[in-house]
């Protein structure tokens, strides 16, 4: 039995993330039996309404990773954000393969490439929380609120964060 390229690569990434984790980010496979299903925890970036929150997300990898990007979905409570679908799925350019650009606004250079990594995805998502991309909203309501009623948006986000912490 040999493990596939995808598995080996995910081993490497896991080891790298556990010995040298970036600030505010934790990630790893849910079970050692399945390297293709990970859970990640992201701290809300400081100086944003997400500050103080901890957001859990699941990452699913395809068998031909890293040729194809994984998918990422916030779990356990919505993240009210223009680039996060109401079901939690994250819509960010680094998760999109360069081949298809359904939104026609992303530069190929921002999108997935086999040299990207879980770490880079999570860092991108963190900065996405701080600075939403207004161009292709996944959550139209949130995008509208962010654009037109910023105070209300920030209050709603803070409320969600509180709720998520059980306060």
């Amino acid at each position, binding site marked *: 039995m*040999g493990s*596939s*390229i*995808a*598995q*080996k*690569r995910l*081993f*490497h*990434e*896991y*080891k*790298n993330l*556990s*010995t*040298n984790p970036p600030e505010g980010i934790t990630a790893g496979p849910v079970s*050692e039996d399945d390297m293709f299903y990970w859970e990640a925890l992201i701290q809300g970036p400081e100086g944003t309404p997400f500050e103080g929150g901890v957001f859990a997300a699941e990452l699913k990898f395809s*068998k*031909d990773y*890293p*040729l194809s990007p994984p998918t990422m979905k916030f779990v356990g409570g919505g993240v009210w954000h223009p680039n996060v679908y109401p079901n939690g799925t994250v819509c960010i350019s680094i998760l999109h393969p*360069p*081949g298809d650009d359904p939104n026609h606004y992303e530069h*190929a*250079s921002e999108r997935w*490439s*086999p*040299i990207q990594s879980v770490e880079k995805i999570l860092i991108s998502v963190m900065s996405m929380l701080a600075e939403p991309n207004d161009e292709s909203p996944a959550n139209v309501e949130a995008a509208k609120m962010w654009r037109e009623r910023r105070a209300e948006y920030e209050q709603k986000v803070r409320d969600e964060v509180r709720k998520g912490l059980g306060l």
Partner: protein
Amino acid sequence: MDSFDVPDSTDWLETPLSLLAPLESSLRCQVCKDFFNNPVITSCSHTFCSLCIRRCLSTEGKCPVCRSSDQELKLRRNWAVQEFVETFQNARQSVLDLARKEAARLKDGDSTIREPSPKKRKVDRVDVREEVTVVQASPRRARTRSQRIKNDAPNTEPVPVAQETIEVIEDSQDEGEEEYVPDDGMVACPICQRKMKAHAVFSHLDTCQGITPAPPPPSKPSAFSVAHSSLQPQPNRLQSSPGNAPERIPAMNYSLLKDNLLRKKLRELGIPDWGPRPLLQRRHTEWMNLWNSNCDSRIPKTKRALLQELDIWERTQGGHAAGPSPFATNSAVMRKDFDAAGWSASHDTDFKRLIANARIKSDTQVRSTIPGASEKSTGESSTGSAAPVAPVEAPPDNGIPVESNQNIEPRSFDPSG
């Protein structure tokens, strides 16, 4: 956690040699994160494992780093990187062991050792230099020194650092010179290894046949000859056995090939030819990548080993892959290794229901065609008119009921249903 304990550049971070982490990272392929295996360089001057970049190019046709278009044909082997990797890998474990020992020692002795007095600084620096040459830089000293520098005089900071760096560079150059400059002032032809005066090499190269058996390379008793000897005869070996070098498999334009021709091609290559067309294409591409990257190897694997790698691919991404692969479902029943017992067990209730339906249907049929025959039908299963009843009588768990019932209600046997 043992299964996750892969060697990694982060191994250095906990040791005093943490600066080796970026060095090790740079010797690893950015696609697979492993040490470069048969490194090749692209037209845009990025280096990857041969297999990794071939897979990328066959899916996307672009360099993963800079996304400029490239072709497999333009990939060139990168021997220098291969040499770095091999020599680094040879040294890695012993250096890491030393570094870890030192880290442990520092941890134990941390409380007793205080910052040395400024008087000792000069002596310290000399020590460090000497130790660097045997790849055993004293980390404690390095650290305390930098702390000290920060503490007292920020102006002097760059000076000792630069000194130390220069020291290391000179040192490695020295080694290189010892290795590469021959004592007799002669230079070996890169093809036939014959020694000659330096200015004669270029004119010789124009005519060099490379056929004459090379004289044994001059023995060099230096400690480094071990690492180099594995690499140096390599152009020689490639040159001397061009017939043995495996031929590369050319890329195919799949759209020009009909199914049967494609299957024939796979058979000719000696790889499995079953499965629907998209799987055939993917399998051919994978085989082409495995094969051609093997051609880049200094020590090519056997075809058998490659077939095993293709088998791993088949199980993880190809036709035997579990999960939502579009290739796993429809053709499953048709395959030789199809698990008939498992299938009939998991679909037992479906089969029973269908058999019941079939029985009712055939009973009514028999009744309508041969009035009064329904009571006799069981006993007369061997006669022509009652033949359709026979398979219905078979116990459902006996063999594969699929075939016997297929004629009666084929719709229900759509495996996706």
